[in-house]
C-alpha cells in the first residue's frame, strides 16, 4: 500500500543549523517516535530499530537507512527499508531546506511509503491515518526541536 505525505514546517533557525541537525543521527533519533536504537554504519548508512504504531498496534521494525543526493545545505534524500515479522515498509523521503529571511528556514519534506504484508492487508484501515499522523508529528517535532534555542 502506498502512502504519500508532505509538509513544510517553518523552523526558527537558519538553514545551516537545520542541515547540521538533519545529519545528526542521534538528534534525529531523539525526535523520532519509538526509536529504540541507532547504529551508524558510516556517515551515510544507519541501522535503526524502531517501534511503529499507535494505540494498541505496535510493531518493531529493523530499518536500513541510507542518505543520498546529499547537497549541503540544501537537500538530501533518505531511504529507509524496514522489516518486521510478516510485514515490511519502504520509505523514501526528499528533504529540502529553503531559507526564510532573515534567520529562519522552511523544511520541505515529502515522504512516500510502501507498506507490505500483514500491515498492508490487515492494517489498511488502521494504518493510513496513523502513518500520516506519525510522519507529520515527526517532522513537526523535528522542526520545533531544531528551532529551540538550547539545541543550537
Amino acid at each position, binding site marked *: *500500500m*502506498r502512502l504519500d505525505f508532505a509538509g513544510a514546517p517553518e523552523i526558527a533557525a537558519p538553514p545551516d543549523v537545520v542541515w547540521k541537525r538533519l545529519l545528526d543521527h542521534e538528534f534525529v533519533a531523539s525526535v523520532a517516535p519509538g526509536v529504540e536504537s541507532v547504529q551508524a554504519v558510516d556517515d551515510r548508512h544507519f541501522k535503526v530499530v524502531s517501534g511503529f504504531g499507535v494505540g494498541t498496534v505496535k510493531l518493531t521494525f529493523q530499518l536500513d537507512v541510507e542518505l543520498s543526493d546529499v547537497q549541503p545545505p540544501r537537500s538530501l534524500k533518505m531511504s529507509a527499508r524496514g*522489516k518486521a*515479522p*510478516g*510485514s*515490511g515498509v*519502504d520509505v523514501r523521503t526528499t528533504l529540502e531546506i529553503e531559507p526564510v529571511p532573515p534567520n529562519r528556514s522552511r523544511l520541505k519534506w515529502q515522504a512516500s511509503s*510502501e*507498506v*507490505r*504484508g*500483514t500491515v*498492508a*492487508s*490487515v492494517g*489498511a*484501515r488502521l494504518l493510513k491515518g496513523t502513518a500520516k499522523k506519525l510522519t507529520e508529528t515527526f517532522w513537526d517535532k523535528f522542526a520545533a526541536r531544531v528551532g529551540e534555542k538550547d539545541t543550537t
Partner: protein
Amino acid sequence: MATLFGSGIKRREDPRLITGKATYTDDVKLPGLLYAAMLRSTYAHAKLNQVDVAKARKAAGVVAVYTGADVKDKLNTVPCAWNVPNCDLKVPPHPVLAVDKVRYVGDGIAMVVAESRAAARDALDLIDVDYDALDAVVDPEKAAAKGAPELHKEVPGNIAFTWKVAGGDTGKAFAEAAVRVEQRIVHNRLLPTAMEPRATCASYNAGTGQLTCWITSQNPHIHRFLLSVMTKLPEHRIRVIAPEVGGGFGSKIPGYPDEALVSFASMELGRPVKWTEDRSENYKVTIHGRDHVEYVELCGTKDGTITGLRTRVYAGLGGYASTAAPGIPTILHGLMYSGPYTIPNIEGTIYGVYTTTTPVDAYRGAGRPEATFLLERMIDLYARQIGMDPVDVRRKNLIPKDKFPYTVATGITYDSGNYQGALDKALQLIDYKKVRAEQAKARKEKRYLGIGVTTYCEICGLGPSQVAGAVGFGGGLYDSAIVRVYPTGVVRAYIGGKPHGQGEETTFAQIVADEFGIPVENVEVVAGDTEATPQGWGTYGSRTTAVCGSAVKVAAQRVKEKAKKIAAHLLEASEADLEWKEGKFVVKGSPDKGKSFGDLALMANVAWNMPPGVEPGLEATAFFDPSNFVYPFGTHICTVEVDVETGEVKILRYVAVDDCGPQINPMIVEGQVHGGVIQGLGEALQEMAVYDEDGQLLTGTMMDYAVPKASQMPKVETAHTVTPSPVNPLGVKGVGETGTIASVPTLVNAVCDALAPLGVTHIDKPLTPARVWAAIQQAKGGTP
C-alpha cells in the same frame, strides 16, 4: 411403494453436522502429530536472495524447516492439468516453494514443522528473507501491454495463451449491422471463501511405504494423482481421504504446493504432519475467481434480432497457472457466448495473462458467469438503444424449444431446452406488466425502481471424456460408482464424486432405494476415500448428479439385473416371466410368488443356491461417461429500488425460475438455488478483492472482503420448469452453479435499469453504494 425420486426428504448427512460430530480435516488427530506453518512472501514480485532459517531451526519445538532450495530436487513442480490446445499455452514451472523469485504476495518461501501450532507459528518470525523488489503488475490488461514487468522468463509479455473462438462471419455481421453497442466490462476478482479453510494432514508409513493424506478436497482422486506427480510417490501408495469438507466453490479443486509439502515433511520426518490455513492466509494463497477485463461488442437489427457478438478478453491467471485455470476463460467461457440465443456470428479472443497476484482458477460457475454476464449486459444495452423492452429482445432471440439438440455458432450442441417456458413462468411470478407499470409511476415521483431480467443457459455436467481429452483436460470426465449389497439387504454406494454440502448422500440414496424398492435408511453413500471408492473426477462444474448419479443408477440397474437372474432361478421361472412389483420380483400372474430384494441379497451373498454360471455376491461397478454435457437454463428477475442520494441498492423481489430437469430432491435443489443466488448477489453488490499497484492484497481479511451476511441479503422466490436431458439415464441437469450464473447480471441489469432516467448505462460490479453514487454523479455531468 411411493417413489423417492422427486421427494424432498430430509438430508441424511445432517445429524452428524448439526451435533458437531462430523470430522473435518483439521479435526483429524494422530499420535505424534506435528504442525506445519508456511512463511509467505510479503512482496508481490521480487528476486529472492537469501532465506536465512538458522534461527528458526534452533527454536524450541521446531523439528524441521525447509526452503525452496531444500525441496527443489525432491519435489516436482505443481502441475497445470488443463492444457487447452491450439492457443500456444505456456505453463512455466511452479515450484512448491519459491526458489529464485516470488510472484505474488503469499507465494511460499519456507515451511516450518514443529511440535505445536504455536511453535510452528513462532518460528516463522525468526526467518529472515532478503528480497530485491521487482515491479508488480496486477491488472491483466496492463500485464498484457508492452513494457509490463515480466513474471516468467519462459513467457514473454506475460501472455500465457491466446485462444480464439469463431463461428459465422462476424466481420460481415458487424459491417452490415444497423445497430452496434459496445462496453468495457470488468469482472471483479473474488475470494471463494469456503467457510472451512483448506487443510492437509499427511501420515507416511515408512514400513508400508504408504502415504495417507486427509485433504480438504472436492476431488480426492485428482488430488491423489496430483500428489503422486508432485511427491514422485507411486499413485497406488497414496491414499487421499477427503473427510467432511466445509464448502469449496472451486477453491478445493486444484492441487496446491502446501499439500505436497506437508506430505513431503511426513515422509522425511516419519511422523504425521498437519497444516491448516488461517483465513488471511486463505485469502492470499487459495485460488481466486473471475478477474477479467472484457471489451464486448454486440450488433443486431433495429427490431431486435441479434446478429453478432465480438469480444476481446484479458483473463488474469495470477502468478502461476493453477490446475484448471487455462480452461476456465476459454472452454467454459468462450464456448458459451451464444447463451440461450440464436446468435449466428460470434468471435472471441481471450488472452490468458500472468499477473503478480494469487492464482485464479474455477470459482462457482467458472467462466460461465462471466459469459452470461457480458451477454445479458449487452442485450440490455442493445434493447435500450433500439427502444425495445429487454424481455422482448430476449424472447425474440431465444432458441425455439423444438430446435433441440441445437448447435450454436461456437460449435457446441445443447441437449434440450424450453427457454420460453421458464421465461413465461418468471414473468408471471413477478407480474412483469405490473412491475413495469409501478416503475413508470415511481419514475414520475422521482423514485428509481429497476427491473433486471436474465435468460440464461449454461454448460455443466462435465462431461464426455472424449471431449475432455479434445479440449486438453488432463483427465476423463466420466464418473463411477460401486453399488454393493450386503447379506442383510442393506446397500452401500461407493461413489467417485465427493459431495461437500450438495447433499448427494441423500439424493444418491434416493436413486438406489428407488431402484431396489427398499427404505432409504437401508442405503448408505460412501465418498471421499480413494481407498474405498472407485476412480472419480470430482464434485465441481455441477457434474456430480448428472454424471456420478448416473453411474449410481447404472450400477444399481446392473445389480438388479443380477438379482433378477437369481430370483428367476429361485422361483423356478424364466426371467421373462418375472416382473418387479412393490419391491419384489414376482411371477407374472402369481403375485404371491415372489422374492424380495432382501431375500435376494441374502441368497446372493450366502450363495448356497446360485443359478449356473452366475458368480456369488451382489454388487456392480459402473463407469458412466455421458454422451454430452447438460445445459440447465432458466430466467431470473429481480426488482430493486436505488436511493440515488446515497447509491444504496435495495432488492425488492428476487424470482428464480430454473430448469435442471427432473429433481431428485426438490428441497436440496431449492437450497442450491438459494445459495447460488446469494453468492452471485455478493459478487454483484459487495465482494471485491482489491490489490494495490504494488500487488498488496488490501482486502486480506473478512474485515474488508464483504462476504454476504444474513441481514444484507433478500429472500429468493424459486420456481422451476422440468425439461429432461437426453444425455443421462436420470434426465437430470446441474443446479449447483445456475444461481450464481444468473443472479449477477440480473441484479446489475436491474440497477442500470433503475438509473436509466439519469443516463446511467453501465456500472462495473460490485455495485457498492460508492460506485453507484459515483456513476450517478458522472451521469449527471459532475465529477464523482
